[in-house]
């Protein structure tokens, strides 16, 4: 079935200050969002899709100016697709601190009339959820039929059920974790160090210098990309294949995997904001709902009222199935409603974005239990 065609982003402006977990207030802010499908009269069919590290509000369809600008999760949203726009009203939002239109480090700080840069606060998953709740108010949505996300997006779905238990009926938490491991934080810090030590970073105020820390951002993305794939998949896709004319015993691109990573790094560095990248990784690192409950995840999740679908992928080593099972077992301990699927997939952490029929069928089947 065809996708949803041309989509147009909207912008909501919020003038009520937002109190941030890290302290401080954001005086006013914009959230850019897209919607697909129709909100029903009872406003009971809305699904919020939260994005991960590098995502944004443009989930599905394509923009009017560019048919190739297809949303990042288009394969799961649309008529007849798992997030069926004939049945559901889907909302995608660019998170606060992002670089796709919502207020972020590149936005103008009203206090200085210059870009926020390094002065933009570090925002947390909790802050995002609070800002998304404002968007729900703006759209007249009292309770989401479901909140869904993969990776960092899954953490937001989980946090929604804790921050606003009465406003989420179902949470689809995919390729996520209840908190990052030390190894995961370590990867994030290497990525941050690549950006922070780039001479073009200028302490985060690079905008006024007319430069961007492209080298740092590129390295950060290359590292991240390695962790999103699986060893098997890399071996299959690239192996040790050399590019034509390679074998020069130098340091130019020789192996296909090098070429691929450099391409991905350049592509990303060309469009993404370094300050946003720093903040997204910090939000990941800080997320830990059990911290205030003596590391007892079951107690932390006890206030959730939503039914949960938790999904993990066998080759995902960045957010491994074990981490998803922690969420599942905490919920079973509490007697909460949870279903868990562990999907066989070769694509590592990136599996959650793939058009894998069994995975999509699991989402479709779960959403059957959502009453409208």
């Amino acid at each position: 079935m065809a996708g949803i065609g041309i989509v147009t982003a909207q912008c909501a402006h919020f003038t009520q200050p937002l109190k941030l977990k890290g302290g401080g207030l954001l005086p006013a802010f914009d959230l850019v969002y897209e919607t697909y499908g129709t909100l029903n009269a009872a406003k009971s069919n809305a699904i919020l899709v939260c994005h991960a590290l590098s995502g944004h509000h443009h989930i599905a369809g394509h923009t009017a100016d560019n048919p190739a600008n297809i949303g990042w999760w288009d394969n799961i949203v649309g008529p007849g697709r798992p997030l069926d726009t004939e049945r559901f009203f889907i909302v995608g939002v660019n998170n606060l601190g992002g670089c796709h239109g919502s207020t972020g480090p590149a936005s103008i700080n009203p206090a200085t009339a210059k870009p926020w840069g390094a002065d933009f606060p570090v925002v947390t998953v909790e802050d995002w959820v609070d800002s998304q709740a404002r968007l729900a108010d703006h759209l007249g949505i009292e309770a989401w039929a479901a909140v869904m996300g993969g990776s960092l997006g899954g953490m937001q779905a989980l946090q929604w059920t804790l921050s606003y238990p009465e406003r989420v009926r179902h949470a689809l938490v995919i390729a996520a974790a209840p908190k990052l491991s030390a190894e995961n934080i370590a990867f994030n810090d290497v990525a941050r160090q690549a950006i922070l030590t780039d001479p073009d970073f200028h302490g985060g105020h690079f905008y006024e210098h007319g430069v961007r820390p492209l080298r740092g951002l590129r390295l950060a993305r290359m590292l991240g990309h390695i962790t999103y794939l699986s060893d098997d998949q890399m071996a299959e896709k690239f192996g040790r294949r050399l590019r034509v004319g390679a074998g020069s015993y130098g340091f130019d691109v020789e192996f296909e995997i090098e070429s691929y990573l450099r391409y991905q790094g350049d592509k990303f560095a060309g469009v993404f904001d370094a300050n946003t990248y720093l903040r997204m990784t910090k939000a990941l690192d800080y997320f830990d709902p059990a911290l205030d409950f003596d590391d007892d995840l079951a107690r932390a999740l006890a206030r959730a009222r939503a039914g949960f679908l938790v999904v993990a992928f066998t080759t995902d080593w960045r957010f491994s199935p074990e981490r998803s099972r922690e969420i599942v077992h905490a919920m079973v301990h509490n007697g909460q409603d949870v279903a868990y699927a562990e999907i066989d997939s070769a694509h590592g952490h990136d599996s959650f974005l793939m058009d894998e029929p069994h995975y999509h069928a699991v989402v479709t089947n779960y959403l059957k239990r959502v009453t409208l």
Partner: protein
Amino acid sequence: MTQMPERADFDLIASWVQPGERVLDLGCGDGSLLKRLIAERGAKGYGVELEGAAVLAAIGNGINVIQGNLEQGLAGFDDQTFNHVVLSRTLQTVRHTERILGEMLRVGREAVVSFPNFAYWKNRMAVMAGRMPVSEDLPYEWFDTPNLRFFTLLDFEALCAKMSLVIRERQVLDEAGRLVLEEPNFLGSLAVYRLAR
């Protein structure tokens, strides 16, 4: 593990579950038993299932199904979380027999176990005639069976004694699903046990 539309052992199991009790169904398939226990008995049910297709079906049936491998035990499930832990027609497919029985009574107060009786008279007849039995309760050919363990009521009860498990109740059914009251190890095709520590 196998799914038949009407399963006689389900009637017995349903009669043992009290309203509001928590049930864990190991090898829950598409969730038929849990669906029934939730609808008829008001139970709070969870299932564990390994096969992706069955997990998919159970999710579609609205079941709290958790994909996992019983051979790895019930790691992650807390002690004494469930009133009943059910293993319906699945014990014969499990390699680590003692471990799974021990795990069931770790996470639950009661283990409900049903399995095909290899000493059922028709099975004995088949072997006497020189062929491995194929029946209602042992519906596979020897070369495609998921069953790893072939045992009888007496074998199972000897294992329970060895593990110091208490048999609270035993019901035995024939191939038509009727209760067998005499010579159960000879006339019974399917046995259903309630076990405790």
